[in-house]
C-alpha cells in the first residue's frame, strides 16, 4: 500500500484524543467501585439475595432468549443486555417503586427488574398475545406502565425528551416522584439529548439522565464518536454529574440512592455516566469485528454477577448450596417461561386494529 501523504484529507474520527499510533482506545475505563459494604449502604442480606436472584434472572433469561432466537422461535431484533445487569438492578433497588423509568431498546433487563414476569417477557419476544405488550412491541418495546416502567424505545435518543416529560408531569403534579432515563452511549450525540438537557435544567425537572456507556455505539467505540468525555456533556448545561462503575451493583446502588434523593429534594436534573460493557454484539447479527476476544475477557473478569456471588460467599451470607438453589429456581422459571411463550397463542388477527386509538370503534382510513 502506498504511504499516506501527510496532507491527505482524512475524516477518521479524532475521538477523545488518547489514540496511540492511530489506534483509539476501546471499551471504557471503569472507575474504582465503592468500598462500602452492604450494611453501610443500607442493604439487608435479604436485599442482596434478591439482587443476586434478579441479576441472575436477567442473565439466564437473555441466554435462553438467544438460544430460542437461534432456533428460529422468533424474529426481529434482539439486543442483549448481558454484562450490564448491575445497572438495572442497582437502580431499581435504589429508586422508589413509583419513580418512572424509561429506556432504549436494550430493555429486557429493565423490564424484568420492574416486574415484567419471565413469562410475559419471553412471550413478548415470541410475539405472543400473552406478552407484556400483547405481542405488539417485541424485544425493543417491553413495558409495564402500572409499575412505572414506561418501556423500551427504538429510536436512538428519541425517548430522552420523553423521560424529561415524565419528570415534567411529576413536578406539575407535585407527587414526589422522579424520572430516570437510560440510554446508550450512541445517544449522547443526538440533538434530542442536548435539547432535553438544556430544557431540563431551565425548568428544574426532577430527572436523572443516565448513559449506560458500554463502550460501543453499535460498532463504533465510544471514544471514537465523541470528542470529550461523555460525562462532561453535563457541564455545558450546568448539570451535576458523576461517573459510576456499572459493573458493580453496590456502586450503582450507592450512586442512585444519593442522586435520587438529591434530585427529589432539589428538583434539579442530574447526569450519570455509568460505565459498563456489553458482552454480546449490538444485536444478534453483529460479527463484532471491532473488538478483540481478549478485550471482552478482560471485562468479563469484572462480571457483575460473579462479583456479587463472591461477595455473598466471602461475607458468609450465602453458602454455595444456597446460591445453587437460587440459580436452579431461576433456571426453572426461565425454562417455564420458554414453554409458556411457546405454548401461548399469537394475537388474534382482529388485534391488528386494537390499541391504535383510545376509542372503542375508531376510524381507520382505507
Amino acid at each position, binding site marked *: 500500500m502506498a504511504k499516506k501523504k501527510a496532507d491527505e484529507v482524512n475524516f477518521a474520527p479524532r475521538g477523545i484524543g488518547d489514540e496511540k499510533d492511530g489506534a483509539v482506545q476501546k471499551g471504557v475505563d471503569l472507575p474504582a467501585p465503592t468500598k462500602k459494604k452492604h450494611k453501610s449502604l443500607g442493604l439487608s442480606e435479604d436485599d442482596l439475595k434478591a439482587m443476586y436472584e434478579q441479576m441472575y434472572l436477567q442473565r439466564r433469561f437473555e441466554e435462553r432468549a438467544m438460544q430460542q432466537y437461534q432456533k428460529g422461535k422468533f424474529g426481529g431484533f434482539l439486543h442483549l443486555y448481558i454484562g450490564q445487569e448491575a445497572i438495572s438492578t442497582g437502580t431499581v433497588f435504589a429508586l422508589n417503586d413509583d419513580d418512572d423509568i424509561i429506556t432504549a431498546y436494550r430493555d429486557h433487563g429493565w423490564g424484568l427488574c420492574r416486574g415484567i414476569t419471565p413469562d410475559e417477557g419471553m412471550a413478548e419476544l415470541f410475539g405472543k398475545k400473552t406478552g407484556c405488550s400483547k405481542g405488539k412491541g417485541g424485544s425493543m418495546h417491553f413495558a409495564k406502565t402500572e409499575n412505572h416502567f414506561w418501556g423500551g424505545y427504538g429510536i436512538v435518543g428519541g425517548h430522552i425528551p*420523553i423521560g424529561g416529560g415524565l419528570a415534567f408531569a411529576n413536578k406539575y403534579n407535585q407527587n414526589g416522584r422522579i424520572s430516570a432515563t437510560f440510554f446508550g452511549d450512541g445517544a449522547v450525540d443526538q440533538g434530542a439529548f442536548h435539547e432535553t438537557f438544556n430544557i431540563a435544567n431551565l425548568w428544574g425537572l426532577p430527572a436523572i439522565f443516565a448513559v449506560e456507556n458500554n463502550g460501543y455505539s453499535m460498532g463504533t467505540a465510544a471514544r471514537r464518536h465523541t470528542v470529550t468525555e461523555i460525562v462532561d456533556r453535563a457541564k455545558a448545561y450546568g448539570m451535576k454529574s458523576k461517573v459510576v462503575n456499572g459493573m458493580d451493583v453496590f456502586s450503582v446502588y450507592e450512586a442512585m440512592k444519593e442522586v435520587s434523593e438529591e434530585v427529589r429534594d432539589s428538583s434539579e436534573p442530574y447526569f450519570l455516566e455509568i460505565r459498563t460493557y456489553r458482552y454480546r454484539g449490538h444485536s444478534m447479527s453483529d460479527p463484532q469485528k471491532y473488538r478483540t476476544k481478549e478485550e471482552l475477557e478482560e471485562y468479563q473478569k469484572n462480571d457483575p454477577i460473579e462479583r456479587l456471588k463472591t461477595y455473598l460467599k466471602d461475607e458468609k451470607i450465602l453458602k454455595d448450596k444456597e446460591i445453587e438453589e437460587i440459580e436452579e429456581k431461576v433456571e426453572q422459571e426461565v425454562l417455564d417461561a420458554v414453554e409458556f411463550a411457546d405454548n401461548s397463542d399469537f394475537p388474534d388477527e382482529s388485534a391488528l386494529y386494537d390499541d391504535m386509538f383510545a376509542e372503542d370503534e375508531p376510524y381507520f382510513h382505507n
Partner: protein
Amino acid sequence: MAELQFREAIREAIDEEMAREEKVFIMGEEVAEYNGAYKATEGLLDKYGYKRVIDTPISELGFSGIGVGAAMNGLRPIVEFMTFNFAVLAADQIINHASKAGYMTGGQISMPIVFRGPNASAGQLGATHSVAYDSMYAHFPGLKVIYTSEPDDAKGLLKSAIRDDNPVIFMESEQMYGMKGEVSEEEDYIIPIGKGKVKREGSDVTIVAHGKMYHVAKQAAAQLEKDGVDVEIIDPRTVKPLDLPMIVESIKKTNRCVVVDEAHPFAGFAAEIGFLIQREAFDYLDAPVQRVTLPDVNAPFAKNLFDAWLPDAKNVIEAVNQVTYRN
C-alpha cells in the same frame, strides 16, 4: 353569535379548556411572556401563571418530546409550534413516538396531546416557511389531523382536540389569525372531530377545500355565480378522520368535483380525495375529478412568482370550467 378574530377563537378554546381541566397546559416558543408570536395565547400567562403557560427555547424536538412524556404521565399538553414548518424538527416525536407508543406497548400508554400552530404558506416567506403538512401527518396511523378555515370551526374543533385522548394535529394559518367570523356563543361549544360542513350549497359542481384554500374556493364560487354556475363547497375541516360520506353525497347531487389543496400534488390530500371519489362515486361522475394544488415546485420569494405558485380563484374557476365543460 359573536364576531371574533380567528386568533380570539383559538384563545377562547384554550382558555375554556384550561379553566375546565387543571391537567391542560400550553407550551411553545413565545407563548407566555411575549403573549404568542401571533397573539393566540395573549393574556393566558397572566391568567394561569408560569406553571401552565410555558415558554420554551427554540428546541422543537426537545419540547415536543417533553410534551409526549407529560401526556403519557397523565397531563394534557398543548404544544404550540410557531409554524408547522418548524415542526419538521419534531417529526421524530410526533411520527415515531406520539402516534406509536400506545400501539407498541399493547395499549398501556395513552397520549392526549395537541400539536397546534399555523400551517402552509403566509406570503413571501421563501421555500422553508411555506409548506402544507396536513396530508403528510394524515399519512401516519394514530394521528388525527384538523386544518380549519373559519373562527367558529377553530373554536369548536380545538376544544374537541384538547379533550381527545389521542394525539391531534391542529392547524391554523398566519394569514387567517386576523380574519373575523361569527362564532357560536353556545356554552361549551364543541364540534366533533371528523365532521365536515357544507359551507355553500349549490347544484352544479362540488368544490372540496379546507384551511386557507376554503377562502379561495369561496371567492371562486362568488365569481362563478355571476356566470350562472352554482357551486357547492364542502369544507372537511378534519383531514383525518375524513368525512367522506359528506363529499360523496354532494357529488351524487352535482356529478362534478374539484379539489383545492394548498399542498404539492404528489400523494397529497387532493390525490387521496380524487381516488376515493372514483372508488365511491364513479357512476355519478359526469367528468373526471380535477384538482388545484401547488405546483411540484418550492415556494419562490419574488412576488410575481409567488402569486403564480399559490392557488387562486382563477385557477379554481379554470378547473370548474373543465369539469363543467364550459371551455
